[in-house]
């Protein structure tokens, strides 16, 4: 299906459908449900320089058409990833992208550096937007100067495709987007989760151990779509859109708004086969509308 091919910087995707970090494990957990090679890419779980235990339980609250999470980047660190996980997933016939996080600029850069020469990791996604960690995370993504600083440091040590994942918890996402673009990022992905909260009224306590957490799922789609549209009109580098995608229609909405590729997150929990259904749905749509190349659809919203 050549008409589905897209490029994110120098990264070629067989189709625009990727899965979002933190919602797809390391990919292999889905091998029972779908043929992973049908995906454009897989963003694996947020990875940090050192092992992290994440936040205490409870980490999850269901909300109207969505959920809050407060995982807090639990992972065994980048070295463990390289030694123990990478060998198990490197032969999946798709693009494996590592989502990188840190509490300091140095951590980000060091983590990225260790991934720079791993053969089957063609790209990293810098998570400067995690709302669930005390230091760093979202703090980096909510000011232009700190966002620029992280990207600058990483760009120095990382020469493959560098995607930067933006936080929606800002007044003007285009400012951050432009600052990140100026530092040489190859692509922007958005949105990460919106900061939210839920309360158990009978116990009079927050449901999450961390009080607040990250909101995702269909409920955030209108906000995500608006931010993709705004960002598309502000930068030149390709955008990877996400936030609440649960159908091929949603994916096409993001593409029309300006996303070159999309990621599916929370809905993987509801329907572990949704990603391939979206691939098929987009293909059908192109067929039905006589569109010979999906690139001709990117940002083609008629306004």
């Amino acid at each position, binding site marked *: 299906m050549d008409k589905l091919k897209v490029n994110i910087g120098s990264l070629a995707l067989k189709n625009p459908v990727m899965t979002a970090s933190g919602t797809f494990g390391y990919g292999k957990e889905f091998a029972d449900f779908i043929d992973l090679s049908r995906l454009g890419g897989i963003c694996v779980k947020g990875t940090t320089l050192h092992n992290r235990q*994440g936040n205490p339980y*409870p*980490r*999850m609250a269901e909300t109207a058409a969505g959920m809050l999470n407060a995982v807090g980047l*639990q992972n065994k660190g980048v070295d463990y990833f390289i030694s123990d996980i990478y060998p198990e997933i490197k032969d999946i016939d798709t693009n494996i992208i590592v989502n990188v996080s840190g509490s300091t600029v140095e951590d980000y850069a060091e983590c990225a550096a260790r991934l720079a020469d791993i053969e089957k990791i063609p790209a990293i996604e810098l998570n400067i937007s995690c709302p669930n960690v005390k230091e760093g995370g979202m703090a980096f993504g909510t000011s232009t100067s700190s966002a620029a600083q992280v990207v600058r440091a990483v760009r120095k040590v990382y020469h493959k495709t560098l995607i930067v994942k933006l936080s929606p918890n800002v007044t003007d996402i285009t400012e951050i987007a432009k600052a990140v673009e100026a530092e040489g990022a190859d692509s922007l992905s958005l949105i990460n989760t919106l900061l939210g909260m839920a309360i158990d009224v009978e116990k009079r306590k927050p449901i999450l151990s961390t009080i607040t957490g990250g909101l995702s799922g269909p409920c955030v789609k209108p906000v995500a779509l608006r931010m993709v549209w705004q960002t598309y009109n502000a930068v030149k580098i390709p955008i990877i859109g996400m936030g609440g995608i649960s159908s091929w229609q949603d994916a096409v909405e993001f593409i029309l708004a300006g996303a070159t590729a999309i990621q599916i997150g929370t809905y993987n*929990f*509801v329907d572990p086969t949704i990603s391939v259904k979206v691939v098929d749905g987009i293909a059908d749509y192109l067929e039905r509308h006589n569109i010979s190349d999906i690139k001709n659809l990117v940002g083609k919203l008629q306004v």
Partner: protein
Amino acid sequence: MKKMLDLVVVENNKLNQNYCLLKLSTPDKSVLPEMYPGQFVEIRVVDSPTTFLRRPISVNFVDKLKNELWLLVQVVGDGTRKMSEYKTGTIVNLLLPLGNQFSTPEKHQQELLLVGGGVGTAPMLYLGAILKESGFNPKFLLGARSSKDLLQLDDFAQYGQVYTTTEDGSHGQKGFVTNHSILENIKFDRVYTCGPKPMMMAVANYAHKNQIECEVSLENTMACGFGVCLCCVEDTKHNGNVCVCTEGPVFNIKDLKWIS
């Protein structure tokens, strides 16, 4: 191998005001996947605006002859209410089988106690059946608020001696499962338990004090059910936070931080 499957409701018995027993089978008569005691399924509840995520429900029983999967459901919110309203013929989408399983006792561990409280009795039925099938003679200790909440007693009785406690004394001994005299009278080799957390903790304490091997089945809230969201974690002694949906739901109490 876990699967996403559409099953059909072949029977839905209202056991009392709050409980129902759902019996599911394959719509095309194909054989149900192999499931083990302690495992669970994730049901997708469509047709409800308040039920976005799937709901985890334990395997209550697998009737291999009839090719039926039984789920014992306690109505606590919109998702379980919808399940309790499923009519014969309703198609239900499930992920299954999920999670680990209760471990098989050693040959010499002959005195086995299966303790269930509330809807936590659900996995005990299938565990008892399989233990019986493997040549053991398990005993069941089931607790509930009152006699009408004691469910499936006839089913349990097929696989072993059944002891009960009720808080109001309307059936069996009055009080909580952990007050039952059988715990004093018999020296058990192994205890399995599922139920409200305070109950499981009390059972775990009893087992720990008496140096009995003990497995508990946890019900942490889950978003995915198959190890990708990392929301369901339990803090363990040696491995830190682990996923209850993949490393559990069954844990040996010696791995948990419940008892110090």
